[in-house]
Structures are given as structure tokens and as C-alpha cells.
């Protein structure tokens, strides 16, 4: 690389034109200053390249631009330089950097329209997806050989067994928090002993299942969406189809089964851990021994609470797997889409789980399981 990058000199030429003399290397390194200097000179302009010993396409482009837009004259270009100028002139096909965008008012309308169409499509797509799943389940029932036991067991491991640690810890801590808050609040009525009722009923009826669902949505729902989405982008799912393997049977059903079957098991485990946490807290803080605690739990928690907690669990699992797999299968195009769809899967799953939880609460109260 030439060390000399002296700036262009300027001055009136013999015919009164402004001459811009460039010497040294006319490369991208000098693009900014060369552009400014060229712009500062009035027309008519002559560019003298005789001092240039090295030029790249950016340099050539700057000169070409002056010739194209301002009718500048070029003198003193070397043979290579001349070729380079011709080459960039040949490549002068203006292109846009961004896709065309209309003005903001009509764009807002268009976006609203697109959003509506999108929402409609998503709904139809979801229905279609549900249908495809039912068809796949039907096919598996008719020929049980198509059931992929290995895939299902592997999902059981990933969704269930590997979640034990974090779900156990989380609900254990929640049990402690319920116990601690309950004890503090109930102390003002002198009713600390009801802390046990609070721990037992809240854990079994509501919190264990809900918190487990949120954790499974975050852990597994997101994984489903990201996995299927990536497989979609790398055309693995297309490859499966062409081989004759149904992606719904091979990918969606095992995940769905894993979520539906693991959710009640994990929820039950979460209930136990939450009660354990609360029990340890009341033992230490209120001095209620474990024996008495268990005795009280058995008296105050009706068995219907357990049913309420466990009936909700598979439904939540289904929602989580549905959102994850559906969003994953919707991915097309680029890597950003995987991120968007994964986020959508988790947000939708958690939102729907909470909405359904409210519906269940009203329903179970009205059927007398209060």
C-alpha cells in the first residue's frame, strides 16, 4: 500500500475549468474526504488522475459519479484506471437498499389489514394444525406400530425428568414464601395456626400447577418452538415429508404426549415440594412439629383440591405443547423469525394457561368443589 495519500490540489486550468488533482492512493480510505472536496468545487470540473498510483472501485466510483452527475472531465487516468472507471460505469444500476415503503397513513392502514389477515390465518392455521394432530393420533391408533416410543421417552426425559430440579427448588421456595407471608399476616389476628391451611390449599389447588405450567412453558414450550423452527429453516421438515415421514407424527405427537403426561406428574411433585417448604418453615418459625403439620394438612385440604390441581395440569400441558409446536411450524425465512416465534409460543402459552386457570377456578367453584 502506498504511504503517500496526499490530498488533491485544485486550481484554475487553462480553459478556466476547476482542476482537481489527485495524487497517491485513491481508495476507500479516502472516500469521505474526496467526496467532500469534490462537492466543494464549482462546475465545470476537471479531474486529473495523473498522480494516482493506486485506485480501487470506491475511488473509481467517486470519479464516475462526478462525471455522471456533473459532466466532469477526467484526464491523466492510467490504462488500468481507465478500465476500472469503465467497469464501475458498467455496474451503475441504481438499486434500493430497503424494500419500498409507502407513506405512514396508508402504511398504518396496510399494517392493520395485514395484521387482521394474519390473525385470521393464524386461527385457520391453528385449526388445521389441530386437525392434522387428530389425524395423526387416529393414524397411530389404527396402526400402533407408527407410534415412536423412543422419541416419546426421550421427550419424557427432557420435559419431565430434567425439570425436576428447577421445579422442585422453585415450588419449595414458594411454599416457604406462602408460609412466611401467611404467618406474618395471620399473626395480627392471632391465627398463625391457619398458615397450614393456607400452605396446603394454595399449593395443591392453585400454585403448584400454575407455577409448573409457567416453568414448563419457559423450558419446554420455547424449546419446541425453537427446535421445530430451526428444522423448518434448514429444510429438515421438508426432507421428512419427502421421505414419507409425517412431521406431525414424528415431531409434534411425541412433544404433545410428553407435555400432557408430564404436567400432572410434575404438578403433583410440585405440590409435595411446596408443602415440604411450607412445613419446614412453620416448623422452624412457628414451632409446629412435622407430625402435627401433616395431620393438619390431611384435615384441611379436601381431596377435591387435589383433583382440581391435577385435572388442570394436562390441559395446561396441551396448551403449552400446542403453542410451542404450532409456532415452531409457522417459522419461515430467517433466523429472526425463530426468535419471534419462540417468544410468541411462550407468551401465548403462559397467557392462555392463566386465562384457563381463571375459567377453571370459576367452573370448579360452581360445581361445588370450593
Amino acid at each position, binding site marked *: 500500500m502506498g504511504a503517500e495519500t496526499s490530498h488533491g490540489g485544485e486550481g484554475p486550468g487553462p480553459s478556466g475549468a476547476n482542476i482537481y488533482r489527485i495524487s497517491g492512493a485513491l481508495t476507500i480510505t479516502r*472516500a469521505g474526504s474526496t467526496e467532500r472536496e469534490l462537492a466543494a468545487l464549482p462546475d465545470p470540473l476537471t479531474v486529473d488522475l495523473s498522480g494516482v498510483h493506486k485506485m480501487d472501485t470506491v475511488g473509481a*466510483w467517486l470519479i464516475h459519479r462526478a462525471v455522471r452527475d456533473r459532466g466532469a472531465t477526467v484526464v491523466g487516468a492510467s490504462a*488500468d484506471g481507465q478500465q*476500472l472507471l469503465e467497469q464501475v460505469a458498467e455496474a451503475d*444500476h*441504481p438499486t*434500493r*437498499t430497503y424494500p419500498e415503503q409507502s407513506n405512514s397513513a396508508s402504511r398504518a392502514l396496510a399494517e392493520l389489514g395485514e395484521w387482521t389477515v394474519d390473525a385470521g390465518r393464524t386461527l385457520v392455521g391453528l385449526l388445521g394444525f389441530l386437525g392434522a394432530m387428530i389425524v395423526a393420533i387416529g393414524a397411530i391408533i389404527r396402526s400402533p406400530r407408527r407410534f415412536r416410543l423412543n422419541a416419546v421417552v426421550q421427550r419424557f426425559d427432557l420435559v419431565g425428568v430434567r425439570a425436576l430440579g428447577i421445579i422442585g427448588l422453585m415450588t419449595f421456595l414458594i411454599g416457604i414464601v406462602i408460609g412466611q407471608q401467611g404467618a406474618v399476616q395471620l399473626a395480627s389476628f392471632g391465627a398463625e395456626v391457619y398458615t397450614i391451611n393456607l400452605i396446603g390449599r394454595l399449593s395443591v389447588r392453585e400454585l403448584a400447577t400454575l407455577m409448573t405450567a409457567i416453568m414448563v412453558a419457559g423450558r419446554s414450550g420455547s424449546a419446541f418452538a425453537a427446535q421445530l423452527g430451526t428444522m423448518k429453516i434448514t429444510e429438515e421438515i421438508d426432507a421428512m415429508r419427502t421421505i414419507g415421514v409425517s412431521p406431525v407424527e414424528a415431531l409434534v405427537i411425541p412433544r404433545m404426549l410428553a407435555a400432557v403426561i408430564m404436567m400432572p406428574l410434575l404438578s403433583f411433585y410440585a405440590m409435595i415440594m411446596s408443602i415440604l417448604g411450607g412445613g419446614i418453615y412453620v416448623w422452624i418459625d412457628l414451632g409446629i412439629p412435622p407430625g402435627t403439620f401433616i395431620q393438619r394438612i390431611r384435615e384441611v385440604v379436601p381431596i377435591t383440591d387435589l383433583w382440581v390441581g391435577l385435572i388442570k395440569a394436562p390441559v395446561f400441558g396441551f396448551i403449552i405443547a400446542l403453542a410451542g409446536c404450532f409456532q415452531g411450524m409457522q417459522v419461515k*425465512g*430467517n433466523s429472526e423469525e425463530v426468535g419471534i416465534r419462540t417468544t410468541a409460543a411462550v407468551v401465548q402459552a403462559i397467557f392462555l394457561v392463566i386465562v384457563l386457570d381463571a375459567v377453571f377456578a370459576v367452573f370448579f367453584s360452581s360445581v361445588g368443589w370450593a
Partner: protein
Amino acid sequence: MSETIIAIRGLRNSFGDQVVHEGLDLEVRRGEILGVVGGSGTGKSVLMRSIIGLQVPDEGEIAVLGENMIGREEDEAKNIRRRWGILFQNGALFSTLTVAENVEVPIREYFPFIKPPLLDEIAGYKIAMSGLPADAGPKYPSELSGGMRKRAGLARALALDPELLFLDEPTAGLDPIGAAAFDELIENLKQRLELTVFLITHDLDTLHAICDRVAVLSDKKVVAVGTIDELLALDHPWIQEYFNGPRGRAAAGGVQEGHRGH
């Protein structure tokens, strides 16, 4: 012509127990197009990744543009990165940016003072130079065909007018007409911009048409480097098979006819 741009000595690369390179030596001279050939799995791409610093070799020395590349700080390596362009096998375009934005990425990184209008124009002519139609600029990579993606990748590799160009199978997946145009494009650019090209390819036509020298990778090292005629004079079974197989002969014949036609 004889200045060495890339010098590799005693390179060793391995993945676990599998040794890919062992005592590999190679020199690339300024202004040449060096074709790198070898059977599948002989580590052509690994060699390229070692040179550009994506793969840290177990042993050996690599110098690019006179600078040692191994164990360099990122800040120092940046000065060398500015002087090369790389076309990956599948283009490796940034999927969330348009083609024009992709081309602008390296320019923005190294020359932030260049104003957007000029930047857009530079991206525009680079895109046209790479043989893409003008309407490819605002498109996203997912909207392009494989061949167009490759050209867009080349446009990005050429963004900084590099001295050294790495091409990993540039003509694979292109139709023969497109591949020939690609060869011509690289040859043109090489002459006008004094490029040095490190070219991994399986395309015999490309080897015959534009490569000044060819390096043959086999048995974990470079077994021979030279012009195709020099290689043919050697008594290496793989080289003979490669250039004298039915495809090799067809490519050689095609080039000779092409020369006569000119």
C-alpha cells in the same frame, strides 16, 4: 509477482482423534489465483478457516499479508481482516438484513464516516458488479435463489476492495452459464484490482479457466502445488485420476476449444 501473501508452515489441525492436517505447508503469492482441490473430507474448508482465524490450529505458523495470524489480539487482527474478503460456501448472508445492507456492513464497520447516500451507491455498484439484477438490493436473503445468494455473498466479500479474496466453492450450485460468468468476473476483478484469490473448488472448468496454480490436498497435507500441466507431469494417483478422469478431460478440452474460439 513472487511476493508471498499467505505462508503456512507445519500446520496441524485435529478434531478429537481425527487428524485433518499434519505438517501442511503452503504459500500463496501476490496476484495469483490459487485453486485448492482435494477429495471430500481432506480439510479444504478447515484450511481456509485456519487461515482466516476461525479455527485455531494445534500447531504451525500462518502468516497472512506478512502478519502472523496465530494468537493475535482481535484489535490487531482487525487491520488484516479489513484487507481480505471471504465468500462462504452458502453465502452466510445476514438473514435479517437486505442484500444492500449486507454489502454495507463491512463498509460501515471500518469506514463509519462515509455518508449513507454514497454508501447506498457503493452497495449498488458492488451488487451490479457481482452480476445481480438491480432489484436484488432491497431483497432479503431468503427471497433469493442459491446462485443469487452466492453472488450477494461475493458482493459483500468485495465490499472493502480487498487485496485477498477467499472463495469457498464459489461455483458449486450455479448453472454452467452462471458459473462461467462467475469465473470471468473473478478473473476480471483479479486483474483490475490486483487481487490475490484463494479458491476452494471442485469445478474443473474453473480450475482450467482461471487458476494460475493449483494446490492438491491429500494425506493431510499439500502433496503438490503448480500449474495444471506441472501437476499432470506428476505420478500421483489421485491427481492423475482427478485431472485425467472423464470429467477432467472434458474440462481440459473445453478450455482449449474456448481459447481457439477467441
